[in-house]
């Protein structure tokens, strides 16, 4: 599903250049649920951006769904994100002027899906994440947990091949966080969805089949560790 070879990425943070990834290899198979853990600044988010075609590496090769996207143009990447990838963010990143329904339907707008179909699909997914009675609510009228559910529904609306979640419980209390992680884990077990969760919370990582530890832009020991330990 995902194959990264010798991927390096650096970016400018104010005056300083940050070497976020330093030659990293990673493979995620179809249907796998992987947690990427590590301290902040270890390059987890950058890694997730590259897996999710939000960014391209300075060096190395990225294969997503059997396509080498290392040299894709911006619009090709957008196309890929629109069809193959679903994102869940720590801060939910819902558009606050739009209702839950419109937020979930938004990705389909850019795919040119007609309104009726968009709304049917969005309503169906909101029902699935347990928000069937919150379709017309704006984000500000929802709790953090509910907002994250909306954002999960949005991530699923385009029927992605892979779901990427960046600290999905980071802004939630532990109980709500647990519910969200269960919801995400359920997508893997019930639907066989490929999932990559970036987290610094060991309890979140427990839901995953496999945990990848990152430190300083590399996968620790240069190897992927198999197993569900934290």
């Amino acid at each position, binding site marked *: 599903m995902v194959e990264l070879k010798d991927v390096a990425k650096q970016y400018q943070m104010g005056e300083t250049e940050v070497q976020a990834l330093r030659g990293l290899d990673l493979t995620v198979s179809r249907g796998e649920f992987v947690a990427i853990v590590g301290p902040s600044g270890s390059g987890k988010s950058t890694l997730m*951006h590259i897996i*999710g075609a*939000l*960014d391209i590496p300075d060096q190395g090769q990225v294969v997503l769904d059997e396509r080498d996207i290392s040299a894709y143009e*911006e*619009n090709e990447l*957008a*196309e890929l*994100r*629109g*069809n193959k990838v679903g*994102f869940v*963010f720590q801060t939910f*990143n*819902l*558009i606050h*002027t*739009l209702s839950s329904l*419109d937020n979930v339907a*938004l*990705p389909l*707008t*850019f*795919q*040119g899906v007609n*309104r009726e179909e968009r709304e049917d699909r969005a309503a169906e997914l909101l029902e699935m994440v347990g928000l069937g009675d919150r379709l017309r609510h704006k984000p500000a009228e929802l709790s953090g947990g509910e907002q994250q559910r909306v954002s999960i529904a*949005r991530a699923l609306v*385009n029927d992605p091949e892979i779901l990427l979640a960046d600290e999905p419980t980071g802004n939630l209390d532990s109980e709500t966080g647990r519910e969200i992680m269960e919801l995400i884990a359920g997508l893997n077990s019930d639907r066989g969805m490929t999932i990559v969760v970036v987290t610094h919370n060991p309890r979140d990582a427990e839901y995953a089949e496999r945990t990848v530890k990152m430190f300083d832009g590399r996968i620790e020991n240069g190897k992927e560790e198999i197993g569900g330990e934290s």
Partner: protein
Amino acid sequence: MLLDYLGLSWHSIRNRKLRSWLTILGVVIGVTAIVTLISIGQGIQDSITGEFEKLGYNTITVLPGNLDTERGGFGNASSGTDTYLDSTVIKNLEEIKVSGATRTETGLINSDQLDGQAFLRVTGMSEEVLSNFDDYFSGFPVEAGERFSFTGAPLEVVLGSGAAKDLGVSAGGTVRIEGKEFTVTGVLKPEDQGDGGFNFYGDLDSGIFVPLATMNDLYGGENRASIVLAEVYEDSDVSSVAESVENAYTANDTASTTITTEDISNRVNNVLGTIQIALAGIAAISLLVGGIGVMNTMYTAVLERTREIGVMKAVGAKNGQILSLFLIESGLLGLVGGALGTLVGIGISLLAGRFIDQALSVPFAPSFQPGLIIGAIAFSFVLGSISGVLPARQASRLQPVEALRYE
């Protein structure tokens, strides 16, 4: 697709109501100014053209001498020259349907009611002038009594209302012109109570009018005219007839100048058109400022919604789609401003039109041509979109990762 974008743009405009309305207000002011100025300007042009049309485009005015017609006011044109036209010269031109003549002199006038005597303008007019060209004298509206007759050279006079008042006579009374006693057959309506419009004579109220034949008896000279008026046949080329008229006078050893209604109307329209363009230009400056307001608002919007743009890109929006979204949004600001501005402009013009109508004696209504209204609204949409181009480009080029990281 476009409708979906419209919906999204509309959402964000409504979300920051005050700022959107203030931005729209900037456009409204500019469009209002343009619509008001153009519709009033066009209205004035229409009403003046209407007055000319009343006179008819197939009338030629012939003046003696090589006049500089740019100076206008040819009602008095003959007073500064001692040359006359022979009113019979063009009578037999086959291109001319009918012609008439007037002759104006300064006459020595007195009446029983007047102490001493006065020098006043006396105008003789041929029968054809009153039958075919009375529009040149605002219709020559006799209020009391009747017009003078044309049999022979009667000692009959029609007085302008002011002249009648100054001389202290009314219809049926008598005045003396150059010592000869004349019967006042009628007095004209005061001009401001007439049917309005222009007259080519000048101050009708102070005029003293007699038949042309009487005039020639009083001041001598056969068929002398200060102005000859000629009507051409329908569908004829007025300016070529005007040329043959001038040629006919040249053959008669008289210098002449012809003026056609078209000449004057063109000249007036040229002047008005220039004024209108200048005014619209000034109004366009305020519209430009409105456009800059839109641009400013859109830059702020892009900055504010950087994260939102990042999200949209993360869920698959392409650069072009983000660009369209922001262009539509700024276009909408322009469009709403344009529509409101057009409405306000129409309102103000109608209101102003009433005052102008009352202030001038000319019937006036602002003119709202469909082109103006459609043009104003379409132009505001385009203006809004153009103002949004740079901000929208900035939005579309944001890197998704950086946009998402933006606080």
